[in-house]
């Protein structure tokens, strides 16, 4: 099931309409930050929590407050914060790599994210909305994340960052945009369909006596 992991409730589009439009584009689910859990037509709306904190302890407190069944994303920041955030229990994805400094998401954070099964979210909004230097910086950061992804194997997820249904992009368009920084078709498909695995990870077998 293809999922857009970043849409926002509270823009000019209702959550139901966002789900309808996403369904028309070929998505089976959307994560709606601030939205309620629901199913609209054939599209499942997963409520999302976006944690933007300055310090790791503030972020951890916010992650612990998140309700069961929500998709929890933490905004990346400085290097120390990123290393800590990659190890938080209950976090599904780390976002905002495009606005980080170069190398602030480094190999240590990448290894921790891979060990904990935490995904890195690639938001298409900076590629769509920005022009010039900001878009070039986003492409560089995403290409850098891709190098770490191939080395350490942490999952990737894709989100449009849509506040309006006009900001949604079809999987085909997402595929074309991801080619700009080197993510191939299989990688895009894995990133679009990886949310279910993140929400219900495969745990080691436990012996219950």
């Amino acid at each position: 099931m293809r999922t857009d992991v970043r849409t926002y409730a509270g823009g000019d589009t209702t959550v139901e309409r966002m789900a309808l439009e996403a369904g028309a584009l070929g998505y089976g689910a959307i994560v709606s930050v601030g939205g309620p859990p629901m199913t609209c037509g054939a599209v499942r709306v997963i409520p999302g929590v976006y944690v933007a904190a300055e310090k790791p302890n503030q972020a951890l407190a916010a992650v612990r407050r998140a309700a069961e069944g929500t998709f929890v994303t933490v905004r990346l920041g400085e290097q120390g914060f990123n290393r800590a955030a990659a190890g938080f229990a209950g976090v599904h994805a780390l976002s905002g790599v495009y606005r980080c400094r170069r190398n602030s998401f480094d190999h240590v954070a990448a290894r921790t994210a891979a060990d904990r099964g935490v995904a890195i979210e690639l938001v298409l909004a900076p590629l769509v909305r920005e022009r010039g230097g900001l878009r070039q910086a986003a492409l560089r950061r995403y290409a850098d994340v891709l190098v770490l992804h191939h080395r350490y194997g942490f999952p990737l997820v894709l989100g449009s960052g849509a506040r309006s249904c006009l900001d949604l992009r079809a999987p085909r368009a997402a595929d074309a945009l991801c080619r700009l920084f080197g993510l191939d078709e299989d990688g895009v498909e894995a990133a679009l369909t990886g949310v279910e695995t993140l929400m219900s990870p495969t745990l080691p077998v436990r012996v219950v006596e």
Partner: protein
Amino acid sequence: MKPRPPTLRANRRYLLVRIAPVSFVPDGKPLYLAIAEAVSALYGDAGAAVIDQAVVAVERGHAIVRCRRGEEERLMAAVATVSAVDGTACALHPRAVSGTILSLRDRLVPPPESVLLDETVDGEIVRQRRRIGAARVDVIEHDYKGERVVYFETIHPEER
């Protein structure tokens, strides 16, 4: 001017894109300018010259955009970065790629007609709620600046 023989002509590919929102029907020239700006911003002048994009037709809620064969992926990425045409917010969603315009016209499914549900007047601003298809409702605002969609909502299943 004598046309070139077919074997010497450049091979083309045609991209069918759906224009959202439904109520927005851009002219060909502003749409071409928006796509050309997006292509130039993404690939530069040299890339734009290779892609050689052009808007062939705008009809029934869709546009057909032409490019050189082999460049359709790059054109698709550039088209995905278009977020406004002539100052009006919109989105262009790629639907299909083909070597002929005819086959794209065969695949073209026109969007449903919009139906006026109600209208409110607030000074010089007129707001219309228009239903599109079974569930979609667009709130369209008309003022001295023109017409634009300000809110996207749905109609309750019991009211359909």
